[in-house]
Structures are given as structure tokens and as C-alpha cells.
């Protein structure tokens, strides 16, 4: 899978999980804006991410959810149960799509129908159109721009126009377009007062934006006035004057010539470059050889320049004015260098200096006007053509020619991943790694642990075969070093595999909520100790048993609100899930304040199902009786409900916990509630064992001790000083019967050809053979120390629960050999 898609999937899972949590948090605190923001950002990010891939169905569903959340954020829609349900459902659907993408890299066609239905449903939840209001608001998030022509000048009175002309002769004039926002009166603004006190006011034109029709319901308090004005004050002073309404005012220079002709040179310069006025003409001299950004030939370069031109029309607040100018200048510098060479950059620099002097973007705007457009539209096409071509090839940077390395997004992105993963999460100093990678590392470390065990053989071979004691010693020394490192690595990878309980717990709020709603019960779930950590294998194996326990609590433990109230309990039930660490074990307690377990009912059930006989029924204590829920085949529910009855009972919970070395204890008080305590190891030592058969029983031998398995004919087994030996690969190997070592009644059985199965192992540097009945497969097991009376048994490394539920005793060959 390409790394980008992988990252997308990792992210998507993460985002969906966060969204789920946020949604549930919102149900409790519907007004928490921080959570709403977080939720919106999450879905927004997911939409953006999905756009990188060709999965339009996915993007559309996420988009619909985003629209809905946008309304929630704008307070046009309130979070309620229905909305939460719909969103949670949609997230499940999105999750399924993520899984499809992960599995097959695409979303199957048959998702389309459901996607469409979902989008319809999400859309149906959108509030009635409030467009009137929102549009008015949106309109005013835009800035007022300079007008497209100077027609308004004609409406100036002759006296004002004369005054303006006279002022223009003395220095630069500024024109302004002021369109107060409709609601401005309610903000205490009086545009007329602003206009009255306008510094350097030399004339103004008022207009009604919409004519008053004389209707009775005319809203006098909605500002309906647009203003054009001329001022002789410096543009900076004007900018400051309008600092409270910057987005409602556009300031633009007005030249004497423009005043005369009524034409706005800035906007007509493309077709009539000769109208460059004197003031800026000096700062922006016409270049000898023209070069242009031709939208046909280099659309992107031309668009960037046109964008900078557009930026120059936007008002900038005083503190950002210089930064904006510089940024525009730096943007253009690169483009000018490519097109016009050093002279062009020099010209650009001078123009920017002129902008600073005049505190106006205008000089730069003029320069850009002369640089936009194709050569056909320009005055001297032949010359321009040559110039453009030269500029392009001379610099070797034809901008329309995509740089090397440009290629489709889904092509192998390659090495980017390492760097991205490295810095992506640098903020939190946490590295997100796909699980398989950790597993792979774990496997490799496991292989290394076994491989290093070849070194002692090599050492003895060096000594015995090649006669070099020196080399043997060195190999042993190296072995010690490698052995220590290998152990550290094993330890290290175990640490990496530690996961917080929260990774399992976070599924619970949703589950409890859904189930409780379905059952018509009220439940408060309290999670504690989510930070407690345990090995990934342990934590992951906990998920299903815990869910099962929770479902049982919800289904059988907690009562419906009316029953609870009648019993004098609070209407809302409470389930506590608490994790804590105790030494090298993790404790997980699941406690509910429900009706508890009735021992009498359990006893009767167990008896009816034949799990206990009549004698036991009489003698069993209440405490013992409730443990019967863990007995295979026991199920307390009269009918198997859709919720907890998944065909498994508490016995499966117990078995699956024991498989990972855990234990379950259950206590219950009638009418007061039930408490289940799980005890689990912090980490698991997964051992690879070879299973051997002996006296109809299976035993395990740790694989890292096994050298080989061979068949040895009875004839080749010799007895030297009442010890059996065989010559294997030219070496004398002592043989031990498994029956002797384990004090078993029957000696090993040879096969039809009179051959014995011999397991050759390396114990304390010596090679020994163990005669058994036969070999079975190898398997990974979680070793558990022997407990109770068995703990006294020597010769066993521990026991392990096998997949089929049987117990495997794993031999400690070292101890057995010493005893022999």
C-alpha cells in the first residue's frame, strides 16, 4: 500500500474515533463550543484528506456530515439524540468505507446506494433555509473594492471638482469608496458623521444603494447609503481614520488626469498604457523591451501576477501594510527574475520603494498592469514575442513546464513517509506506527533471539573441530554481548507494545449508550484508570471479554428506571470500569449497582442444565454458586437477547482471559450489584514450543532449546554404563527416556520400523536426546507459571492454555536433566 494511503487510513481511524468521543461528550454538554469546534475540524480534515484519493462517495458522505456540523457550529442546529444517532451511524458507514479502502484500495459500487441514502438523511436534518440572514452576513464578510469606473466624478458639484483639481495640483489625491454595512447603525456608527469629519475632504457623492419605494415597512435603520469621496489627506492618515471599518472602505489614489478625464487609469492600463500618470510614471519607467505574463502561454504565472495585482486593490490595516507589500514584492521578484532578468528585478525594487514613499500600492499596481496580458494584445507584438521567448529560455525556467518529479498523487510517494511521520507528530513527541510494523519487528527480534543461540555451537565447533580455543573464547564473549542486546531489544519491543487501557475503554461509552437506549435503561458509565498500560496483546484481547461483561451488566444487571425507583435506587444506573496496576499485574474491575446475582436462581439453573448434581446442589455455598456462571454452557438469560446473547457465555470470557494468563473473580450482592475483577499480566512472554507426545499426553519443549528432531533405530541405541547413547552426526549424544524424566508409567513407543522419536536439545552447552512417543506441531503459547499444588512440581517451566482449551505443560529440560 502506498504510504500516503496508509497515512490516510491511520488518520481516518484516528479522526473517526475522536469524532465518536466528541459526539458523546456533546450529548452531555451540548453547548461545549470547544468540542463542537473539534468535531467540525475533525470532519473537515477527513473531507480534505479523502479528496486526495479517488473516492468520491466517501468524500460526499463526509461532506454531508460536515454541512450538518457546520450548522451546529453556527448554532443553527442543536445537537440532540436523533442527530447524534444519525452522525454515529454515518461514522460507522464511513468506517466501513475506510475498511474497504484499506482492504482493497477502493470502495465497491454497492456502497453508492447506501451512501446516497445517508446523504439524503443527513441533508434532511439540515435546518430550514435561513439563507436570507446568512447571505446578508456573508455579503459583509467581503471587503469593499474600488469602483470599476469613475462615473461618480461627474456627479461632483462644479465647485467641488474645481477644489479637487486644485488640490490635485498640490499633491496626491485619494478617492474612497465607503459602503457602510447594513447593520452599522446598531453598532453605534454614523457614516454621515465619519464623512463630515473626513480629513482633507474635498468633495463627496452620496447614493442610495436601493431606491426607497415608499413602502410603509421601509427599514430606516438599515443603512442604505453608499459614499464616494475625494480627500487630499495622505492615504495613511485616511487608512487610520477608517481603522474601525477597514473592510467597508476602499481607498485608491486619484490622479489629476483621472479627475480630468473621468477615467480610472489603473483599470484601463492594459489597453492604454500611455495613460500612466506622471507621479508614478517616474517610479515605473517603461522598460525598453517589453515582456509580458501571457495567460495563454503560462497561465499559472500570469494568474499569480494577476492575483498580486488584485491584492494591491485590497485595503491593508496599517500594521500589516508593509508586510503585505513585501510579500507581494517577494512573490513577484521570483517571477520577474525569470521573465525580465536582473533589470526587471531592479525595476521592481524601485517600484516597491516608490510604494513605501507614497504609502500607496499604486505604483506597483501600475507596473503590473503593464506586465499582464499576451503579446498579441500589446503595442509591439514582434518585440514582445522575442523578449518573452528569450526570457523564458535564457533562464531555463519556463514556468508552464512542470518541474521534475511532478507526477500523479497516487504514485508511490516513497521516502516521504519517514520524514513526515517523524515531524508530523513531533509536537506531541509521539510516533504513529502501523501495528504490522511493530509486529514485524517483534518477529525479527524473536528470530534473532533464536539465531544467536547458534553462536555457542559455533564456539564449541571452533574449539573442538578447528582446535582454536582462542576463537571459541572470543565467540563466547561476543555471544554474551549479543545476548544482552537481544534481551534489551526484547524488553524494548515489549515497552513499545504497551498500550493504555483507554484504547479499549474508548469503545465503551458508545456501546453502553447504544445498548442502554435500546433497552430503555438509564446508565452512567464511569471509566477510571484509562492510562494504565499493558501489552498490546493483553489490551486487545481484553476488548471482547469486557464488552461481553458490560453487555451482561446492562442486560441482566441493571434494572429499568421504574424498577430502580421502586427499589429506592436512583433512576440512573451506574457502571464503573476501573483499571489499575498492581505489581506486575493489571486489575480491571467492572462494577454495577444493579440487581446482583441471585444464587438460588443460579443453583437451580446449573442443576437443570446438569452442571451440578443433586448432592452438590445441596452443599454448594452461595459464593461458590455464583461462580457457576463461568461454567461452560451456562446462560442465565431466559431468552437469548440480541444484545448480550451472541452465543457465548461467561465461560468464553473466562477462557479467553485465561489464554492470556488472566483470571476472573466475581462477587455479587443481591439487590446491590455485581463486581467482576479481572487480573492480567502486564506483558506476555510468547514462547514458541514444540509439542511432543508421551503416554498419550502432550508436552511442550521451548523451541530455542531444540536442535533437531530425529528418528533413531533401536539398533543404534547403545547402553554405556547404564546410560543410553546414540551416535548422531558423528557425535555421542546421551539419550533420556521421557518416561524416566517425568516418572511416567510407560516407556516410549517405537514406530513400525522400530525407530524411536528423539528430540535433540541443547542444555547447558551439552547436546542431549529425549526419547518420546512422537512429535506434534510447534505453537506459540503464553507461558504461565504453575500455581497452587502444581507449583511444587519440578521440571516444568510452566503451563499454557492451548487454543482448544486444553492445558499444555511445558518442560524445563535443564531442571529435568539435572535431576536425572
Amino acid at each position, binding site marked *: 500500500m502506498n504510504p500516503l494511503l496508509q*497515512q*490516510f487510513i491511520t488518520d481516518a481511524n484516528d479522526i473517526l474515533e475522536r469524532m465518536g468521543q466528541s459526539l458523546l461528550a456533546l450529548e452531555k454538554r451540548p453547548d461545549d463550543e470547544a468540542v463542537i469546534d473539534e468535531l467540525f475540524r475533525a470532519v473537515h*480534515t477527513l473531507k480534505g484528506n479523502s479528496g486526495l484519493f479517488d473516492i468520491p462517495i466517501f468524500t460526499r458522505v463526509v461532506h454531508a456530515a460536515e454541512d450538518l456540523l457546520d450548522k451546529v457550529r453556527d448554532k443553527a442546529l442543536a445537537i440532540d439524540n436523533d442527530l447524534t444517532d444519525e452522525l454515529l451511524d454515518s461514522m460507522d458507514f464511513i468506517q466501513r468505507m475506510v475498511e474497504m479502502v484499506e482492504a482493497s484500495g477502493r470502495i465497491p459500487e454497492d456502497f453508492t446506494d447506501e451512501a446516497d441514502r445517508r446523504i439524503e438523511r443527513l441533508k434532511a436534518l439540515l435546518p430550514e433555509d435561513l439563507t436570507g440572514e446568512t447571505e446578508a452576513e456573508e455579503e459583509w464578510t467581503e471587503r469593499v473594492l474600488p469602483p470599476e469606473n469613475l462615473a461618480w466624478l461627474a456627479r461632483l458639484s462644479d465647485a467641488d471638482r474645481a477644489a479637487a483639481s486644485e488640490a490635485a495640483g498640490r499633491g496626491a489625491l485619494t478617492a474612497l469608496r465607503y459602503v457602510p454595512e447594513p447593520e452599522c447603525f446598531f453598532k453605534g456608527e454614523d457614516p454621515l458623521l465619519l464623512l463630515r469629519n473626513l480629513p482633507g475632504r474635498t468633495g463627496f457623492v452620496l447614493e442610495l444603494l436601493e431606491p426607497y419605494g415608499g413602502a410603509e415597512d421601509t427599514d430606516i435603520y438599515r443603512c442604505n447609503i453608499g459614499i464616494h469621496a475625494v480627500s487630499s489627506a495622505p492615504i495613511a492618515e485616511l487608512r487610520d481614520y477608517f481603522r474601525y471599518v477597514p473592510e467597508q472602505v476602499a481607498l485608491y489614489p486619484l490622479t489629476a488626469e483621472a479627475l480630468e478625464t473621468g477615467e480610472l487609469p489603473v483599470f484601463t492600463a492594459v489597453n492604454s498604457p500611455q495613460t500612466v500618470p506622471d507621479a508614478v510614471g517616474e517610479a515605473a519607467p517603461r522598460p525598453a523591451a517589453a515582456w509580458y505574463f501571457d495567460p495563454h502561454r503560462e497561465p499559472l504565472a500570469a494568474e499569480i501576477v494577476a492575483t498580486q495585482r488584485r491584492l494591491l486593490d485590497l485595503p491593508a490595516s496599517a500594521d500589516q501594510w508593509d508586510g503585505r507589500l513585501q510579500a507581494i514584492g517577494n512573490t513577484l521578484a521570483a*517571477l520577474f527574475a525569470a521573465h525580465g532578468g536582473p533589470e526587471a528585478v531592479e525595476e521592481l525594487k524601485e517600484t516597491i520603494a516608490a510604494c513605501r514613499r507614497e504609502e500607496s500600492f499604486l505604483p506597483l499596481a501600475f507596473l503590473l498592469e503593464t506586465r499582464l496580458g499576451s503579446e498579441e494584445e500589446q503595442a509591439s507584438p514582434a518585440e514582445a514575442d522575442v523578449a518573452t521567448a528569450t526570457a523564458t529560455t535564457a533562464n531555463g525556467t519556463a514556468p508552464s513546464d512542470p*518541474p521534475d518529479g511532478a507526477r500523479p498523487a497516487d504514485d508511490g*510517494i516513497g521516502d516521504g513517509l519517514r*520524514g513526515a511521520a517523524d515531524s508530523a507528530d513531533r509536537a506531541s513527541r509521539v510516533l504513529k506506527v502501523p501495528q504490522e510494523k511493530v509486529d514485524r519487528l517483534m518477529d525479527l527480534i524473536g528470530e534473532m533471539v533464536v539465531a544467536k543461540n547458534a553462536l555457542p555451537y559455533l564456539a564449541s565447533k571452533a574449539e573442538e573441530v578447528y582446535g582454536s580455543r582462542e576463537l571459541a573464547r572470543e565467540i563466547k564473549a561476543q555471544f554474551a554481548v549479543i545476548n544482552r542486546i537481544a534481551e534489551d531489544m526484547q524488553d524494548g519491543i515489549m515497552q513499545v507494545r504497551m498500550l493504555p487501557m483507554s484504547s479499549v475503554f474508548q469503545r465503551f461509552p458508545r456501546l453502553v449508550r447504544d445498548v442502554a437506549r435500546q433497552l430503555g435503561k438509564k446508565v452512567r458509565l464511569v471509566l477510571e484508570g484509562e492510562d494504565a498500560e499493558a501489552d498490546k496483546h493483553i489490551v486487545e484481547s481484553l476488548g471482547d471479554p469486557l464488552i461481553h461483561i458490560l453487555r451482561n451488566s446492562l442486560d441482566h444487571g441493571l434494572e429499568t428506571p421504574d424498577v430502580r425507583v421502586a427499589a429506592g435506587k436512583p433512576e440512573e444506573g451506574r457502571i464503573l470500569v476501573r483499571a489499575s496496576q498492581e505489581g506486575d499485574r493489571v486489575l480491571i474491575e467492572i462494577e454495577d449497582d444493579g440487581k446482583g446475582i441471585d444464587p438460588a436462581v443460579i443453583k437451580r439453573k446449573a442443576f437443570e442444565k446438569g452442571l451440578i448434581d443433586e448432592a452438590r446442589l445441596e452443599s454448594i455455598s452461595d459464593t461458590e454458586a455464583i461462580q457457576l456462571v463461568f461454567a461452560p454452557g451456562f446462560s442465565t438469560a431466559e431468552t437469548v437477547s440480541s444484545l448480550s446473547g451472541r452465543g457465548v457465555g461467561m465461560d468464553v470470557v473466562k477462557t479467553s482471559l485465561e489464554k492470556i494468563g488472566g483470571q476472573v473473580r466475581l462477587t455479587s450482592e443481591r439487590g446491590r450489584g455485581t463486581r467482576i475483577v479481572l487480573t492480567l499480566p502486564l506483558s506476555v512472554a510468547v514462547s514458541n514450543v514444540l509439542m511432543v507426545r508421551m503416554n498419550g499426553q502432550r508436552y511442550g519443549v521451548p523451541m530455542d532449546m531444540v536442535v533437531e528432531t530425529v528418528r533413531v533405530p533401536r539398533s543404534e541405541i547403545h547402553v554405556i554404563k547404564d546410560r543410553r547413547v546414540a551416535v548422531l552426526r558423528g557425535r555421542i549424544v546421551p539419550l533420556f527416556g521421557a518416561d524416566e524424566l517425568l516418572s511416567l508409567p510407560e516407556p516410549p513407543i517405537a514406530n513400525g520400523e522400530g525407530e524411536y522419536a528423539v528430540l535433540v536439545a541443547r542444555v547447558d552447552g551439552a547436546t542431549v536426546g529425549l526419547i518420546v512417543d512422537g512429535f506434534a506441531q510447534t505453537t506459540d503459547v503464553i507461558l504461565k507459571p504453575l500455581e497452587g499444588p502444581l507449583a511444587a512440581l519440578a521440571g516444568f517451566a510452566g503451563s499454557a492454555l492451548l487454543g482448544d482449551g486444553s492445558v499444555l505443560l511445558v518442560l524445563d529440560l535443564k531442571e529435568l536433566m539435572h535431576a536425572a
Partner: protein
Amino acid sequence: MKSILIIDDASTVRLYHRSLLEEAGFHVDEAVNGIEGVEKALSRTYDLFVVDVNMPKMDGYAFLREIRRRKEIHQSPAVMVSTEAEEKDRQRAFAAGANFYLVKPTKPNELLEVAALMTGGRA
């Protein structure tokens, strides 16, 4: 080598942009929100900022305004990348101080070409 700072809270998008730009020979740094972006921009000169809109703590608009306000930061071009293609969104980006606007998902060629043009060459 030209350097680019990507400010985006979505790691997938960062990875995507970073891979493309690094492939083309740019030095690329990342920031997960505007605040981190400003911090990084204070620590070295970047030839281009590639800025997301919606981010926690400090969004793209606030980042741009902050950058444009600060005299100690080299005023490099900024490209705002957004999922929205509407004119009013462009207008907001430009009003905040962006020099160019690209709609997400960015096309690889487009992003690379814009980066090359705005920084003055291929990396």
C-alpha cells in the same frame, strides 16, 4: 535549496505536500497549527508558506495576519490551500495576506509549479 513551511493540522495533507515538494528538491518543514508556524517562521527564513485554513489554536488567516504584521519575519509569499473554491473564500485568504490560493486537493503539478514560480525556480 529553497525551503518551504507547510502549516496544516492534517498529517495526511502534510505528508502529501511534503512528499511532492521534497521529491522536487525543496527543503520542507511542517507545523501543525498557526502558532507553531509562527514559531518556525521566526527561527529561519522560508521561501514559501503553504497554509491550511482550518486549524486548531491559530487558523490560517490568523497565521497570515500575524506573519504580515511581524517585521522580524522575512515576508515570504504564502499560498493558502483550502477545500473551498468559492470567491468569498479566496477573498478572505487574500485579505488576510495570502499571495495565492489553491483548492484542495491540490493537483501535484499545480502545487509544484506554483512553488517553483513563487520561490524562483526549481527548489
